[in-house]
């Protein structure tokens, strides 16, 4: 009897030790669990480089240092390459091409460049010519074809009228599978942000080729994000078009481009009047009534062309252009800081200002 009792005592002691050991193990692991939260940031790599006359921020999540650094170096090389190819006023492949196009010569091009021209033309047509990269001469007349801020004065109205009368559009280009020719000597190409969007799309391709599935490439207003930041989505702030700071934020999911085109990006003031760089191809003057347009779409080049076209379209016509270009998520901020959004965009936008702005929701129609 006493023996049996003793045995039971032993057993209960053993159980005590066992649970004690469990607790010790759990306690010992706690710092490790907390440390795991900390380590979140150690999988994050950030780099900043200068390309396209703008700052490019790159973040990757979840890959080791070597992979991140190699991918970022490859992206930088690609950015520089696209810049040297498509720059509108630095000596580039484009400026060389242009000299020959102006003489009416036929130029042979590789498949990549042909694809670039075809995409730009398709987007230009879809935008009702409001995104029109063929008005480079008009951009130059305004002085937005240089690194420095133009000093003014604005061009003479007659000079603007004369250029508008020649009506240069992307449809003046004769593009075959291997060649390019222009039928209108007034065409001068300035792809502006579109080349940047194209470069961002390429950068994401490069990231994926390096096995990176969580990344952000942000070239000024042209941003494309894939995957997420560990267990949470990427969190993107959208700049306030009038003040410093952030007006709204979005969380991206999967693979999305967030692109903002704003009239505050490049401008000059002359005798108290603000002249910005987004020229309305119909009037020849900077687009009126709009401060900025933000678009969420899958590819960056399309998002870029659409945002630019909708700044020109303004609060009255943006819905028509969004529908034509197949864009479902749009936010337009007009001169009075009234916000126009599609229902799909409204679900994604979180305002960061108090009080929130006046919002008008309308579908792309």
């Amino acid at each position, binding site marked *: 009897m006493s023996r049996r009792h003793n045995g039971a005592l032993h057993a209960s002691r053993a159980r005590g030790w066992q649970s004690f050991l469990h607790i010790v193990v759990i306690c010992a692991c706690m710092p490790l669990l907390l440390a795991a939260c900390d380590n979140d940031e150690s999988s994050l790599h950030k780099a900043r480089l200068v390309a396209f006359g703008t700052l490019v921020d790159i973040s990757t999540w979840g890959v080791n240092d070597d992979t991140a650094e190699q991918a970022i170096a490859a992206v930088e090389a690609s950015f520089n390459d696209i810049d040297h190819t498509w720059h509108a006023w630095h000596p580039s492949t484009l400026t060389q091409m242009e000299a020959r196009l102006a003489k009416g010569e036929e130029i042979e091009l590789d498949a990549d460049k042909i694809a670039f021209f075809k995409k730009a033309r398709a987007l230009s047509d879809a935008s009702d010519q409001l995104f029109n990269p063929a008005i480079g001469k008009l951009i130059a007349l305004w002085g937005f074809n240089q690194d420095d801020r133009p000093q003014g004065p604005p061009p003479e109205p007659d000079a603007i009228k004369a250029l508008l009368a020649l009506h240069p559009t992307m449809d003046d280009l004769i593009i075959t599978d291997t060649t390019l020719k222009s039928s209108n000597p007034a065409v001068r190409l300035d792809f502006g942000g579109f080349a940047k969007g194209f470069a961002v799309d390429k950068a994401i391709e490069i990231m994926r080729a390096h096995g990176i599935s969580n990344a952000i490439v942000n070239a000024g207003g042209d941003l494309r994000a894939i995957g997420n930041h560990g267990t949470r989505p990427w969190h993107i702030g959208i700049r306030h078009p009038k003040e410093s700071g*952030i007006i709204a934020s979005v969380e991206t999911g999967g693979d999305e481009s967030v692109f903002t085109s704003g009239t505050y990006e490049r401008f000059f003031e002359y005798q108290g009047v603000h002249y910005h760089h987004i020229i309305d191809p119909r009037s020849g003057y900077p687009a009126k009534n709009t401060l900025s347009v933000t678009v969420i779409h899958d590819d960056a080049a399309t998002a870029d062309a659409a945002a630019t076209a909708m700044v020109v379209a303004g609060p009255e016509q943006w819905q028509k252009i969004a529908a034509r270009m197949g864009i479902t998520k749009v936010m337009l901020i007009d001169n009075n800081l009234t916000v126009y959004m599609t229902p799909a965009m409204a679900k994604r936008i979180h305002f960061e200002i108090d009080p929130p702005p006046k919002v008008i929701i309308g579908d792309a129609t």
Partner: protein
Amino acid sequence: MTRADYIVVIFALLLVPFLFTRYWQAPAQGETAEILIGSDKKIEVSLNKDQELNVEGPLGASVIRVHDGKVRFIDSPCRGKQCIHSGWLQHSGDFAACLPNRISVAVLGSKRRYDAINF
């Protein structure tokens, strides 16, 4: 309570100071700004300490002033002076750049609220 329980309690109490020192971070010391020169050289400055920095870029020295929790370019050897026009930077995410001189200033903030800023 068994002897094991006492040991667990003592062990847990001993763990508290360790966790405290390891994970309890003092509130961040205000905001900081990051100055980037070229593509790789970085300087971090606190916005709590007023100072003026001469930062050498390829064109010469850009002068950056920190005052009263804010930071700005006050001189730069570029032609456009866009960097100076940008004015004071204060909020997390604000930034100004002198691209010809390859120098940029960005306010980092005590807590990074955004992974990227669309502007």
